[in-house]
């Protein structure tokens, strides 16, 4: 940590959502690990608002029945799963894996930089075409097979 600014963001994703209700309580927003990060946008507030609104609906229904048991509050999850933000969380469920793939942040940016560097700079050494430059820079960092798998993962996460 280099600076504390109370702006920490927790890990989130549809696979990390815990049980949202129990006997006499409901959990919403960040407390329920609700966060939608689809690489392009980082959404926490609208998810929190939607979950809180769903929770409020469930609590109001429970109050009408005078019963705050887990069975009664289970409608919270049903309400929340009908919201658009939840549908977005499901839509982008494969996107989340991209954030966990360290190669996307540590290996590939450097790789692109080095390949471009090899191609665009004039050196007093024999030059390389793009493929040779790529293979040389990939050595010890990533295999072609791994890179192809990552490309498929990016495609799954962001394209379709």
């Amino acid at each position, binding site marked *: *940590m*280099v*600076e*504390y*600014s*109370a702006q920490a963001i927790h890990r989130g994703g549809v696979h990390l959502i815990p049980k949202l209700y129990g006997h006499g309580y409901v959990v919403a927003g960040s407390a329920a690990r609700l966060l939608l990060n689809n690489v392009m946008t980082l959404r926490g507030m609208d998810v929190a608002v939607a979950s809180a609104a769903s929770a409020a609906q469930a609590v109001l229904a429970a109050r009408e029945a005078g019963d705050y048991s887990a069975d009664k509050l289970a409608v919270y999850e049903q309400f929340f799963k009908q919201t658009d933000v939840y549908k977005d969380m499901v839509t982008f469920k494969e996107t989340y894996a991209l954030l966990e793939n360290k190669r996307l942040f540590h290996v590939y940016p450097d790789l692109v930089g080095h390949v471009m560097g090899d191609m665009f700079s004039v050196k007093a050494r024999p030059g390389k075409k793009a493929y040779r430059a790529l293979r040389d820079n990939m050595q010890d960092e990533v295999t072609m097979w791994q890179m192809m798998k990552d490309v498929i993962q990016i495609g799954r996460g962001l394209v379709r």
Partner: protein
Amino acid sequence: MKIQVLSLDARLGLDKYEIDEKNSHILIDQSRCQQCLLQPCLTVCPAAVYVTVDGDIVARYENCLECGTCQVACDTGGEGGITWNPPQGGFGILFRYG
């Protein structure tokens, strides 16, 4: 790899401040705080600016990260005893990394 959890004081120690030693940007109306049952300022502040000293609410304003949470919490969950103004120009927290 073991992740080390820094104490709050250690985290605040990483921050850079220009402290306005003449004026506090946080004003507290003790008469309102005395009536306050919930006293949300004691729990919501990420820098633990608010503490109780001999039953009074005290603001250690020099630690303030200027997030504004206390004002919202006090107005909605408390008795409105906190008046939070932005520090005078040039004073307050100096975020170097955003």
